[in-house]
């Protein structure tokens, strides 16, 4: 039993991450400095928030491709509510986040009530929400936010970037929920056998609605943080975010078919990806080479884990 625990995906990933980070640390002495690490933490946060909630989504056997678009939509709406409607910024941001939650809820509703496969449903809303962002903004961007707003995306609390605190808190809460509560058990049950979960009295529709709404919420918060970090809003923000998040989640060991996955795995996946991006760039390798490497790492990791799982489970 102990060998089996050792060969778990998360363990292999952890070892791999440590090895990679160590190697990178040797390539550049700027890598392992506190300042750099904290800055990387800042950059992880947006994808991180989305990826952590995405773990729940994928563990139920679903997927949410619309998160990138929700980021963009929320960013645009923040700008619109603040500049065009003249609302105070906190209220504008709050309403934008609310809109993001509604977007997520719509996803959940289509998926849970109508039974539309999540891949298609969120593919449709990816286009719809991005389209709304583009249409509302008409490709104009908004700038000139007040200084205090940037504390969220560019400031620190006690020396650690603000958004990293948020990410930390969310990670811990979600890890507890997924691993130790009945809601988490429900998520795994839905991912493994949704019908049996329903027949056992678990609230499947409710769980799905909650999860997709949460996914929308996470994307919305990430959107606001993003705006705060780059001091501007544009309608193409968040493009491709969904793939980064899904990559981190799958790399972290969550099965795309549902039924298995952990938050710690996703966090490790995030760390590994960001570490690679940063470490390689500090070592002088161009950004695109890193993207290639991440793709290779994703495939190799799943390949290796498949080899170790001899019972042939997918």
């Amino acid at each position, binding site marked *: 039993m102990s060998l089996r625990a050792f060969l778990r995906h998360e363990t292999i990933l952890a070892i791999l991450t440590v090895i990679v980070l160590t190697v990178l640390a040797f390539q550049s002495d700027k890598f392992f400095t506190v300042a750099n690490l904290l800055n990387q933490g800042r950059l992880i946060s947006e994808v991180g928030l989305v990826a952590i909630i995405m773990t729940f989504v994928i563990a139920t056997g679903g997927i949410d491709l619309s998160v990138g678009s929700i980021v963009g939509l929320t960013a645009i709406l923040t700008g619109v509510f603040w500049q065009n409607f003249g609302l105070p910024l906190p209220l504008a941001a709050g309403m934008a986040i609310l809109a993001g939650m509604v977007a997520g809820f719509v996803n959940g509703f289509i998926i849970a009530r109508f039974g539309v496969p999540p891949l298609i449903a969120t593919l449709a809303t*990816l286009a719809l929400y991005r*389209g709304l962002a583009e249409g509302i903004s008409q490709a104009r961007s908004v700038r000139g936010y007040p200084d205090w707003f940037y504390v969220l995306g560019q400031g620190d609390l006690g020396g650690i970037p603000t958004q990293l605190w948020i990410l930390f808190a969310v990670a811990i809460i979600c890890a507890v929920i997924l691993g130790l509560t009945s809601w988490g058990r429900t998520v795994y049950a839905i991912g493994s056998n949704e019908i049996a979960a329903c027949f056992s009295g678990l609230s499947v529709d409710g769980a799905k609605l909650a999860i997709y709404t949460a996914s929308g919420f996470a994307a919305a918060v990430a959107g606001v943080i993003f705006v705060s970090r780059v001091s501007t809003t544009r309608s193409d923000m968040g493009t491709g975010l969904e793939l980064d998040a899904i990559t981190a989640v799958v790399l972290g060991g969550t099965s795309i078919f549902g039924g298995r996955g952990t938050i710690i795995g996703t966090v490790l996946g995030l760390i590994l990806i960001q570490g690679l991006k940063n470490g390689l760039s500090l070592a002088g390798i161009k950004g695109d080479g890193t993207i290639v490497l991440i793709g290779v790492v994703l495939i190799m990791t*799943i390949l290796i884990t498949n080899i170790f799982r001899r019972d042939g489970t997918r």
Partner: protein
Amino acid sequence: MALAGTPSLKAAGLRHQSGFWTKLYRGYGQETVILCAMIFLLVAVGLYNPRFLSSENLITIFSGNAYIAVAAIGMAMIIITGHIDVSVGALIGVLATISGTLAVSGYPVWVAWLLPVVIGVVINMVIGVLVAYARIPSIVVTLGMLSILRGGLISITGGAWISNLPPAFLLAQQKPLGVPAPIYIMIALSILAAFWMRYSPFGRSLYAIGGNPEAARAVGIPIERRIVSVFMIHGAFAGLATILFATQLQVIQSTVPPNLELTVITAVVIGGVSILGGTGTVIGSTLAAILFATIGSALIFTNVSAYWLRAVIGLLILVTVLADMIRRRRGA
């Protein structure tokens, strides 16, 4: 012996004959819906703005998205077998760059056309092997491949555009009999593929693999080999689509249209292929690709900002899929 449970003779008689029109609807319901939607749009917008129906505009509509239709043929086959490919957009970008570079560097035009197809086949062969033999889910493999190709594309081009393409290279701009080449190619490929899927054992086996993999294996279909083959064919179609894509303009951009793969998948799904695998045809995806172009053009001609195109397509997918789900529930 009187057997309880035997259906009455009347029902038996009826079941022996499925009428022609019933068969047509049952077999091609989705395609009919798309056709109707297109006709509706053409009529409605045409009444609003007659220039919409000018032969020039119609030709643009039909040829502009031809490359999407061609890519959708390969993607349809992939989805019918129950898999997916999210890397085809990046692949087309890479292949287009290779193609353009070859053309500009003085290689014969046929090399610039053929090599992308070959490379497309090879890259997808790798994907197919990973999916079929290493048993990595196709969404994961193609996600990884997407990263690899995206990064690779930026590396190769360094962001620069390719210009000064030799005129002989520009296939998409040639107009035999006044009709742009892409239209011929798109129609020919679609019809060939549709026949092949319907009448060849290979084609039927794809539906079997997507519908019930265990049963397919039991019947003796070599699933792993078929999956690799399907991905290779898909790679070939991606290569062909690249030719149509790369030769449209005088320049080749260094980036791919964003979300190209999602547009292709959307065309396939709206065309009637179920994302769950096992059903659907390629004709539908071709029609859907044309429908997108029709909608895009309709927006322009009705003075609706083009920025709303994406939203409209998203809404369209939703409506299509919801209608399908509701139809299924009622029939069940």
